[in-house]
């Protein structure tokens, strides 16, 4: 039996007790008596407890965490403990799902579960510590005692709190995208309930996704309609009439669904304070609220505009004026519902729809106090649209990262128009990947001077059992249903925790915007990646001399073939954070 602590950027293979990231195992330090953490106020810091029983069963387990004392006191209630659940990936037991230690009846043991993990030899716990915003800066220490059957061990936890408070609002938005309703089928109590959209049970579960995202400095983004244009029940208000008589019959279901997210009350109790969700999709699409049968006729425009106007008025009356409400068309013509692509326009003749809908909503969006915006997701045509009228038509751009890197002029041009820019795509992020693959996203947002990044699907559970081997090795899952553990809400993952920790660092970096410190930070990042400007901004390829509709996936792949993806030790995250804190504290 061995019990030790490790930092938050490595993981332990539950099958053998070795480090998952074998290639960098020399960087994984086992702390036998003292672990040191560094952080800012209003920031989470994390570490892990590993219990390696060498295959012996463990039935009785206990963990005690003391208050931390230093220049002030940090209560042990600032700790959150999670049992790490292991998934079978490539012959390993990789930990990812995190079961809240004190919110379920599920107990830590080895093996955790005879059905799923009968060969488990090592277990682990993830421990979050939230450093309160009012904690005086300085060095804190506390005790941690772990008992597993007849074996017990005591550790000292040292936390250096810097005299910096992490901003509560996000500077780098980590967008966890999803497609409604992609959650009911993994929660049996929802799947079996035909009234889930009206009786509040679905709202309760979905809201916890929003809360988990918010608490982890991410934004949960749930697209409210299908490719056909059908809006998922409860994601739009009930309408009546048509043409000049169309109106919202009742806001009841919409307000019950989204009101708490839009007024911020859904986030009450979150550590960084409650605030309205930052971004949300509107239900508007090619088929709602206007009847697509009327497309091209004046009645289509009438219906679209009348309901949009009712939306902005309703949002103003409710005071929901802090959330960016996105008019976004996800439709793709390859699915045969519509003759043009609303998403990822590749054929230039399709882009006309942006002009059409912009004409419908321009005055409504300009007049309202609510933040209604026109969003486009763009890759193929980004370079063309950046330099034509569409840069002024669309206010929010979610752009494929590789193509984005061909246009260094992009961020400046977007900022001049107050456009919001996210990037997406490319870097693998399944649980078999080094956590460094997640770290690169927020760092890239800092280096490219953009607003955020989109992980295109965060609830892609598919039909595989996520507790066994998640669909796609988890590359489209950042949380899990807690139902198996008697907890009918979503539970977080190690990758969600890692992402939060990395976004915290990116937010801290971006807090220095407009000062010499950000330049220092960027230099530091370049040193760590052995990179220069050409690493972040690529030379424009020959491909750009041809129209996007002639680009094949192969041509795109060839154009980006030489791009080096960073392959670094997971420990890089800590090194970079330490340097960032040094730069900022010296700057103060």
């Amino acid at each position, binding site marked *: 039996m061995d019990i030790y602590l490790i930092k938050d950027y490595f993981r332990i293979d539950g099958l053998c007790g070795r480090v998952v990231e074998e290639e960098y195992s020399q960087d994984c330090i086992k702390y036998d008596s003292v672990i040191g953490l560094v952080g800012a106020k209003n920031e989470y810091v994390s570490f892990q407890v590993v219990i390696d029983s060498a295959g012996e069963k463990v039935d009785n387990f206990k963990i005690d965490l003391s208050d931390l004392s230093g220049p002030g006191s940090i209560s042990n209630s600032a700790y959150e403990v999670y049992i790490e659940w292991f998934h079978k990936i490539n012959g390993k037991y990789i930990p990812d799902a995190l079961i809240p230690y004190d919110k379920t009846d599920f107990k830590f043991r080895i093996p955790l579960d005879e059905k799923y993990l009968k060969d488990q030899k090592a277990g682990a716990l993830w421990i979050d510590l939230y450093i309160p915003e009012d904690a005086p800066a300085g060095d804190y220490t506390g005790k941690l005692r772990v008992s597993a059957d007849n074996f017990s061990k005591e550790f000292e936890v040292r936390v250096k709190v810097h005299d910096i408070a992490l901003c509560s609002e996000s500077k780098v938005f980590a967008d966890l995208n999803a497609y409604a309703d992609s959650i009911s089928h993994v929660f049996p109590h929802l799947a079996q309930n035909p009234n889930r959209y009206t009786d509040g049970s679905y709202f309760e579960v979905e809201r916890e996704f929003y809360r988990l995202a918010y608490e982890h400095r991410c934004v949960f983004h749930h697209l409210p309609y299908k*490719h056909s244009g*059908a809006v998922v029940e409860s994601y739009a208000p009930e309408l009546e009439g048509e043409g000049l008589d169309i109106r919202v019959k009742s806001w009841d279901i919409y307000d019950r669904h989204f009101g708490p997210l839009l007024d911020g009350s859904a986030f009450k109790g979150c550590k960084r304070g409650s605030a309205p969700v930052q971004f949300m999709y509107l239900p508007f699409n090619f088929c709602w609220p206007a009847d697509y*049968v009327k497309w091209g006729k004046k009645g289509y425009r009438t219906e679209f505009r009348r309901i949009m106007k009712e939306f902005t008025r309703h949002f103003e009356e409710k005071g929901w004026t802090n959330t960016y409400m996105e008019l976004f068309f996800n439709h793709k*013509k390859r*699915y045969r519902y*519509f*003759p*043009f692509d609303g998403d990822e326009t590749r054929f230039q003749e399709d882009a006309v729809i942006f002009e059409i809908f912009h004409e419908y909503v321009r005055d409504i969006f300009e007049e309202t106090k609510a933040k209604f915006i026109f969003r486009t997701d763009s890759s193929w045509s980004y370079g063309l649209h950046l330099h034509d009228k569409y840069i002024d038509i669309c206010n929010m751009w979610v752009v494929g990262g590789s193509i984005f890197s061909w246009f260094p002029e992009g961020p400046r041009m977007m900022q001049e128009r107050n456009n919001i820019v996210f990037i997406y795509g490319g870097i693998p992020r399944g649980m078999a990947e080094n956590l460094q693959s997640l770290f690169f996203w927020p760092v890239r947002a800092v280096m490219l001077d953009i607003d955020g990044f989109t992980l295109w699907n965060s609830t892609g559970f598919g039909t595989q059992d996520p507790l066994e081997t998640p669909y796609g090795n988890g590359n489209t899952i950042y949380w899990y249903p807690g139902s198996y553990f008697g907890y009918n809400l979503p539970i977080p993952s190690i990758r969600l925790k890692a992402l939060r920790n990395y976004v915290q660092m990116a937010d801290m970096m971006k807090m220095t915007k407009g000062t010499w410190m950000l330049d220092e930070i960027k230099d530091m990042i370049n040193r760590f990646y052995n990179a220069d400007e050409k690493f972040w901004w690529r030379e424009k390829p020959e491909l750009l001399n041809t129209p996007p509709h002639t680009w094949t996936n192969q041509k795109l792949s060839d154009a980006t073939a030489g791009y080096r993806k960073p392959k670094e030790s997971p420990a890089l995250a800590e090194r970079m954070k330490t340097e960032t804190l040094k730069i900022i504290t010296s700057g103060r």
Partner: protein
Amino acid sequence: MNKAPRVLDIDNIARIGLMYLDGDLVENVMLDKLSLDYDDVTYNHEQFYELKSALTKTERINPDLDITAVLWQLRPDNDQLAVPIICGNAFPEEGWEITLVNPEMDRVFKTGESCVKKRSDTCSSHYYAVRNSDNAIVAVLELLVGRGYRKDI
């Protein structure tokens, strides 16, 4: 007792729908019939609107039946492959991609006679020939009934 009136209903719905589905528009609505890359699909926009509108109206004739209407064509280079060229309110059972033509649909393409493919005790696909102004069969109209949900991504 229940089956005959229901089938009759669907046939009548199809008859009305076919009056508004212009075969000449169907014939050329998809501009790149030989492309195998689904990202390459391109349409004549105006013709598409006309046909989609007709499909949607057909679906709405009897809302109780919750019909999904789909237009199918055969690939010009391989008549064993069928392509759903326009979907109404949902995908057909085969999804949105190029698929092997099923025997019932194949029969409609070859003979022009309508045909029913039973998919389950409650669900069936009713196929009807769509003809152009030369009276040539240019597509098949599928009316899918009884699925109980709308298939999408």
